[in-house]
């Protein structure tokens, strides 16, 4: 008897945990951050926390405007950040000289 109840509880508990997990998964996505309409962009950032810190040091900007810009062809974070400096595209964030593209992604990370 006892063992039956335990099995039922266990199965229910497991089911509940999976349900919560699925709900969290669908809410946060694989990054541990809530899903946003900009995840195609934000998921290019390896660690979101430092990007958010950096972005918060910049003036606030609209995530829609930023995303429109970053969804243009050729704005992939890694590739374009690597090219930025050679092309003279650097910007200052509280004195830190960083690739312009990274700054835009960081601004977006802080805006959502």
């Amino acid at each position, binding site marked *: 008897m006892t063992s039956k109840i335990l099995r039922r509880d266990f199965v229910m508990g497991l089911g509940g945990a999976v349900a919560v997990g699925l709900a969290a998964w669908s809410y946060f996505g694989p990054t541990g951050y809530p899903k946003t309409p900009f995840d195609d962009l934000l998921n290019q*950032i390896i660690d979101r926390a430092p990007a958010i810190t950096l972005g918060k040091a910049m003036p606030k900007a609209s995530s829609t405007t930023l995303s429109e810009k970053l969804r243009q062809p050729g704005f992939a974070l890694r590739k374009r950040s690597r090219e*930025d400096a050679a092309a003279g595209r*650097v910007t200052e964030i509280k004195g*830190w000289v960083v690739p312009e593209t990274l700054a835009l992604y960081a601004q977006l990370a802080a805006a959502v």
Partner: protein
Amino acid sequence: MTALLDARTLPARTILTPDLAIIGGGPAGISLALALADSGHEILLIESGGTAFEAPTQSLYAGEQSGVAYTALDGGRLRFLGGSSNHWGGWCRPLDAIDFTVRDGLAHSGWPFSQTALQPYYARAQELVEAGPWIYDGADKLVDGDVAGLGDGGVYTSWFQFSKTRGSVLPTHFGSRYEGDLKAAKKIKPLMHANVTGIRLSKDGGRVDHLDIATLNAAGGADKHFTVKPRFCVLACGGMENARLLLASSDVMKNGIGNSHDLVGRFFADNPIPRDTATLVMFDGPLPGFYLNSSPVADGPVLRAVFAPTAQFARRTGVLGSLSTVENPVALDELGKAAVVATAQALGVNAANAKAYALGCGLELAPDPDRRLTLTGERDALGLPRLKLNMTLSDRDFDSYRATMKEMGRQLLAARTGMIRLNYSTRAQWLAAMDWGNHHLGTTRMSADARTGVVDADCKVHGVGNLFVAGSSVFPTYGASNPTLNLVAMTLRLADHLKTVLA
């Protein structure tokens, strides 16, 4: 061997008649005397101090100040044999070719000759400052370790060399180092405790007729007065005092000697050395030690790497000279850590071993006629009017350095080797971090045209046949290099010229 002659032991109203009187026994005056030692001419080296610091003599240097805070006038120089080399740092680096050129957008820039005119004199100047074999920008190949990977761009690794240190004596003190050579030279008479208080011109103003000399008594007041009547005279009293003596000698030329165009004392400059101007992060770990410390290489010379703008970048952007030193490792704040992690990840590099450093720098200032020395109504113990310095620093001077550092930041990112933080963005921040090289430049500037210069390309005062000026007061534009090696080279060039005019 002649002894150093003490002017206080000469009878009052003595008249000395050397071929050449050199006023001032600092690096310029001593280098000049030694260069002419075998010329066969009688040389009198007139030095205000003795062989050690004496407070009453030093107080002759005191003066007033206005404008941007600056070292006290009696604090940034020393008045005894060897002059300010008695407390210099020994940093040596030749001026760059661009420092001599007229630069677009930089008013009052350019020397009346190019760097090549000084080249023949650098080897001997390097010997006199005792900075070892001439290596400088050839050092990359000699040192143990690689220079920072800056990639292509407007900033590169350049090099200082250092005047030799021996035992407890820091860099070459020209007085103690060359006292023996001065005494050994038969034709050089070093006259100590002799203060020139006036340069007296012939009635037509065309020649120096004589110099007024005064000594101080034990109480620090005026004692004896006497006269030197030289055939030729060289003023080598340092970048402030050269102007003071010319301005104060106003009995014949009412505005002072060489000052018909109101230039004497104007265009004063120094190399500001603000601290902690930028934070440099190298993703790959520590920089080699030769960036952080003066480092001896195998066969002797002591070197230190610095970051400098290339001539091409300076011409394209109009930035002024700067030499950035890596000072010490620093810890990053939260934003700094975030900037490094986010940037390294975006660039696809590993920054697990990243190391951060504070940068300092030595800057070139833009020539400014309002940064100037004038005489005040107050007089020193010997009756000479004291100086007042009006110090200025323009925002352009700061912006220029920021542009150079930003370019360096860009290069590091492009090379994916590191990044930079520019630490100051307001004038108040710059001024709070300000320190000074105490390199006194520009107050008797050189130009072929008497309307734009006090001395001509031979360092002769325009309009005065037998009066010359030695030292960094003749530099019309300044560069960021410390001046002493360069002013010694200039002085040796002047010595060559004097050999011909004295003959």
